[in-house]
């Protein structure tokens, strides 16, 4: 059990890691275009947090959303096809990397206006409470969104109305090329931001998937029992550049910093824990590597062989046609 449980966490992180490594390759081959923001290094946050959810709970995130979408259970084929802009993509190729949506799995989307999706998260939580349901909403966002006015307006509303929204700040210490200490006045204590709204808040090691899941499980239980917002600062780090347009370490951070952070790799960490506790063998990991490799290759094949949407799709989905309503 314990073993299966840990393996499945590792498996999800590995899927995200390999999926994104492959999507980077596909970007280089121009199979994928636009902005592609990789989550590599931050997998423990999405996987740990979403592992604490029920399938009917909501998740929503910013544009760095592949990890959250896959962790919520979306089909890698459909996700890769979306990145390829194909008709078989999650969003028929209309959304792209920054706007993955899987409504059926309650992944309510990736959004590309920094701070803009926090009010949406409050609204999903409002709907839950309005219906007297007991779902929770996980809202992921980067620390760069903390200074944004929309973020604060969302916090105040969620706190004022006790909405079951759990705000997870993925603090990877950079907003593009700007280090956190030049983004946020009180950058050392960002949980104070939430507390100034009376929102309970805590930090968690975002490189430790078990710690993330444990804390989020706890918090989800509390929030289900008595609806209210919660704030978590997940301390993490992005191993790659801001997007494919940005080198892995621009002059805004040193190669050494990136190298030393890579030692905190969430996959390595869980792997070591498991080996130490004999929860898995090297053979297990080798098998996982092969399985995931197959899944990712298949996703690429699926995406590649899928057709592009036809021209008639251009004007579809702008409005719900009356007869649908």
């Amino acid at each position, binding site marked *: 059990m314990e073993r299966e449980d840990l393996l499945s966490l590792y498996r999800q992180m590995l899927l995200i890691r390999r999926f994104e490594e492959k999507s980077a390759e596909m970007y280089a081959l121009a199979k994928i275009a636009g902005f592609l923001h990789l989550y590599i290094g931050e997998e423990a946050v999405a996987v740990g947090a979403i592992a604490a959810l029920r399938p009917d709970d909501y998740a929503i995130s910013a544009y760095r959303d592949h990890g959250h979408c896959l962790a919520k259970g979306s089909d890698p084929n459909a996700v890769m096809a979306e990145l390829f802009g194909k008709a078989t993509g999650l969003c028929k190729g209309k959304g792209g990397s920054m706007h993955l949506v899987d409504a059926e799995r309650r992944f309510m989307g990736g959004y590309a206006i920094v701070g803009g999706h926090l009010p*949406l*998260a409050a609204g999903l939580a409002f709907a839950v409470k309005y219906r007297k349901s007991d779902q929770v909403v996980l809202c992921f966002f980067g620390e760069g969104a903390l200074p944004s006015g*929309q973020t604060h307006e969302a916090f105040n509303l969620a706190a004022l109305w006790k909405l079951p929204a759990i705000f997870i700040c993925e603090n990877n210490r950079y907003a593009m090329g700007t280090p956190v200490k030049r983004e946020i006045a009180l950058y050392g204590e960002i949980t104070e931001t939430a507390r100034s709204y009376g929102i309970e808040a805590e930090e968690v090691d975002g490189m430790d998937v078990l710690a993330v899941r444990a804390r989020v499980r706890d918090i989800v239980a509390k929030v289900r029992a008595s609806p209210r917002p919660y704030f978590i600062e997940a301390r993490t780090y992005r191993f790659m550049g801001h997007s494919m347009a940005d080198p892995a370490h621009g002059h805004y951070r040193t190669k050494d910093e990136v190298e030393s952070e890579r030692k905190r790799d969430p996959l390595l960490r869980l792997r070591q824990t498991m080996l130490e506790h004999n929860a898995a063998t090297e053979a297990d990991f080798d098998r996982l590597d092969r399985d995931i490799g197959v899944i990712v290759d298949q996703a690429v094949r699926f995406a590649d062989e899928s057709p592009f949407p036809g021209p008639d799709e251009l004007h579809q989905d702008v409005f719900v046609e009356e007869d649908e309503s």
Partner: protein
Amino acid sequence: MMMSYREALNQAMREEMRRNERVFLIGEDVGYYQGAFKVSKGFVEEFGPERVLDTPITEAGFTGLAIGAAMAGLHPIVELMTFNFGILAMDQIVNNAAKIRYMSGGQISVPIVIRGPGSAAHQLGAQHSQSLEAWFCHVPGLKVIAPATPHDAKGLLISAIRDPNPVIFIEAQLLYGIKGEVGEGAYTIPIGKAEVKRQGTDLTIVAYSKMLQVALDAADALAREGIEAEVVDPRTLKPLDVETIAASVQKTGHLLIVEEGWGFAGLGAQIAHSVSRAAFDYLDGPVVRVTGENVPMPYTRPLEDLAIPDSARVIKAVNRMLNRAS
């Protein structure tokens, strides 16, 4: 029965909130204060604070919250105390409400009505006196409605609330008090249908919201000079009912558009273009527009009066254009 535009809106929302409990009202002072302009009188008493929500002064926040609620299947009615403050919610309206359905490939829709007064009242100054319908009409994924009469207001608001898409519903502080015959019960008026408010043969005047009355007053005065103007109210600004306007122009050969907003890049320019394309060979002269002046709204009354179209300016424009054409 006779009732005010304000009461008509109140009835429309009341009918729909009784009919469908997913519908709720959210905005500043819409509850215990009954709405800044008393449009939601009696709502918190009838529907309770769970469905009639007073918000802090956070237009982006509560509009975004309402959009999120709509994504989860509720039907919010957002009251903007005035559309001037809607500028603060523009990102939510344009980048989320209008686009989520398309970006998600049709997975998620956003059934929401965002309503409140647009345009100038009396001497509220530059930051509180503007008409931004052209902005909203420019954005794909939004429907835009601006009714001029109590009857249209009720029927169109009910249609807007039942519409599964985001609808911008623009009222006017100076219209809330006007009275008119209003139908009984929960009737609907189709979105996207203009109405000929006055029959005429000599020219077509297009006017909406507050400007409809200005146009009708001008038409009456012109009639005394023997000029019969046909007055068409699009009622829905987007999708625009070009057909009805063009049909009128084919009859009259002349088109005058009256709009309160700033002239440059105002909605009238699009109406002029759409109709010119549809009825070019029938136009005996260029389309003429009477618009708000291209200045921030001055506070002082004499200047404010000059900045906003009135029937005198419409009459002058009509005489000029008909002479030019004859």
